[in-house]
């Protein structure tokens, strides 16, 4: 039994060590692909840069710089849709990157009939400034601060009015960040980009009447999926069916 138990422990340690070594090897391989993508881009081989950066993603690794460089490479190959898609993916990870904002803005300016999706929410500035994880932690920190304030006020014998006022203010901060985190999560549900020109039809088949054209790079919301077709909604609320291959989720 003892031998078996020790053997089992050794196996677990060996498996953990092996998986750690593999993970490190994968990360090195991903970093090498990234570097190759940078070199290809430097030499204006943009298709190759796309291939190398997609290889990093295929290896299971992500970073804002990977999506950013991929967006640049796609842009240089003339694929505005793919470019906007990857800039938006990068923005989810690094929303305050000024280079990224500039490039996304420029890529959007290349999109035919681009209509920005406007948000009336007062939490919109926080939604666009923080990542989802940052918003969640901010909400949690504000919540913790609220609790700490209430309890310390009670123990310290602080006047009740002051405790109520402070609690309301901190609860508002908590609510703001929570609303921003919630709004961001809702906004990302079904968010997609048209990666190839397409026609939106009334029915999910090629015989359906064309309702409107969807230029490459248009930012959309996916409402439904059916038999290789997706029902999309554009920023002005009009919706139609397009082939699934022409849109990619962010």
């Amino acid at each position: 039994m003892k031998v078996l138990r020790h053997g089992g422990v050794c196996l677990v340690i060996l498996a953990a060590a092996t998986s750690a070594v593999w993970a490190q090897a994968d990360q090195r391989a991903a970093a090498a692909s990234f570097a190759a993508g940078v070199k290809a881009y430097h030499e204006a081989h943009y298709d190759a840069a796309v291939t190398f950066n997609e290889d990093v993603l295929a290896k299971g690794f992500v970073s804002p710089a990977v999506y950013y460089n991929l967006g640049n490479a796609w842009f240089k190959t003339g694929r505005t849709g793919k470019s906007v898609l990857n800039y938006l993916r990068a923005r989810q990870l690094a929303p305050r990157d000024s280079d990224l904002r500039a490039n996304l803005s420029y890529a959007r300016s290349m999109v035919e009939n681009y209509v920005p999706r406007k948000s009336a929410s007062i939490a919109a500035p926080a939604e666009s400034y923080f990542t989802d994880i940052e918003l969640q932690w901010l909400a949690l920190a504000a919540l913790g601060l609220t609790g700490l304030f209430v309890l310390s006020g009670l123990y310290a014998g602080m006047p009740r009015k002051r405790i109520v006022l402070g609690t309301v203010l901190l609860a508002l901060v908590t609510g703001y960040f929570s609303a921003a985190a919630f709004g961001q999560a809702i906004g990302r549900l079904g968010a997609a980009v048209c990666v190839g020109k397409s026609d939106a039809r009334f029915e999910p088949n090629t015989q359906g009447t064309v309702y409107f054209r969807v230029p490459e790079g248009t930012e959309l919301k996916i409402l439904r999926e059916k038999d290789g077709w997706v029902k999309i909604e554009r920023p002005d609320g009009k919706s139609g069916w397009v082939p699934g291959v022409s849109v990619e989720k962010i």
Partner: protein
Amino acid sequence: MRKPMITLMLAAVALSAWASDIGVKATVTAGRVALGTALQYTITVSGIQNIQPPVLPAVDGFDVRYSGPATRVSVINNTYAVEESFNYVFIPLKEGKFTIPAIPVDVKGQTFTTEAIPVEVLPAGAEVSSAPDAGVKGKDLESRMKLLMGVAREKAYVGEAVPLTVRLYVNQLSLQELSFPEIAQEGFRLDPFTEPKQFQETADGSAWQVVEFSTLLYPLKPGETNIAPALVRGSLLFKAEPSRDTSGGIFDDGFFGNFFSSYQKRPVTISSNAAKFDVRPLPEEGKPADFSGAVGEFDFKVEASPREVKSGDPVTLRMILTGMGNMKGVSLPVFKADGFKVYDPQIKDEAGRRVLEQVIIPTDTKVTEVPALKFTYFDVPSGSYRTLERGPFPLKVAPSASGDEFQAMGFARPSAVLAPETLGRDIVFIKDNPGRLEQRTQGMSGRIVFYAMIAIYLQVWGAALVFYLRRRRLLDDPKFARQIASAREARRMFHLAGERLAAGDTKGFYDALEKGLRDYFVARLGVLPGGMDTASIEKALTGIRLDGKYLAGVRDIFKAAEHARFAGMPAGVSAMRTHLADAEDIVRAVERRSR
């Protein structure tokens, strides 16, 4: 079957594959295969990526399995090329001659079709004869690659653009990493070679892959001009002889032997023929003084806008030269006229045309036109000089209001400014550092920590709140405080009783036991100290619906205590232990009932 199977370029380029630089071809590793071995069938799509693998139909005589894609990116002289290959393993099922049918391949809505490929399946163990490129060496190799150079004309004028073509012919060989042709430029100048074209040609009964490089040549001096042979460098891909391993492992059989054969590259330099042509000088007779140096066929356009301005407002003059000739060496007409302030021109060379833009500013209201502009060149088809005149362009100049004059900011001299600055726009450059490469699943662990933190928060908050409320009640409610303290005090007295029991002090034991119980009932059940008799205690205990056995226990303890105190009758140790245990049970039961 360990004979090396040499790669064959059996399948030719697809019939309609050269539209828009997209190519589709199918190849097999061998035209003959022995039963019990396998061959690889590859569909290669060049010029595009990210396409779906073609679905192969059932092929008579073979079991077909898809073995995966491969992407190849190559760079030749700064030219980028991409190929995506889809590999299939064909396992022969029976002997005979079969044909792999033409496969339709859908690429971006266009359908390309590969060529059908005949394959012969030999009996198991039969030796497959060498393929056409097997043992490609020496003279055989030379006969399968050739480079031909040609100029479009035998005679040309100095400065005339002469098309030059270099064609590389390859027969059943795989050449990679080709360079652009290198030609020593003596007595002429060459434009850079354009993107090469690829196509197939049949000659001497063989199919040849052709790569055609084109450019324009400009003679610089008259006389016979010799063009030295062009050189194209590249790498020849050939299949290496596999090592003969005698260990007899699983990789030693025919199937694995074929698939694990390695390919090797060998650098090759291919030389073309030399070429020559006669260069004639431009005639001196009738040569205009304003000859621009342009030789060829040209068209010349001039635009001036706006045509109605105030004095001091800018007018943009645009000259566009298009056509076939030595465009880059050409001087466009120089604008000179009285009544104009003239800025330096800006010249751009675009695809097949040269554009000059110049800002001119009429400074006098008497100016009525932009004068005509003349462009003189040597017209090759007619063999004579020709002048193209454009304009004049009517111009209406109104007097300007004071202070309205156009001024180029930041330049002291008018000639230093071309036009208002237009800033370029483009994306910001890429990032050289990947930052922290995270595995996609790592976000989940962050989420688990986040939710764990929320749970801990709620628990700490709840506990702190309960503690606070209890503390407040203990301070504000003396009865509650007494009740909470009573059980603790009773237990302390029972502990004291236990010590006296151990010391053999019967009276002391019952004093402590009775006091503990009585004080507990006063504090916990609100029995008045003055009315502390058995009946009032029983009434209080009945009020909280305590089980009858506990009432009996209370009575027994009080009775025993009375006997010990007044009658001095010593109780047995076991009875005392029972009474102590009963007392503790009673307190526990009351605590449970009082909650």
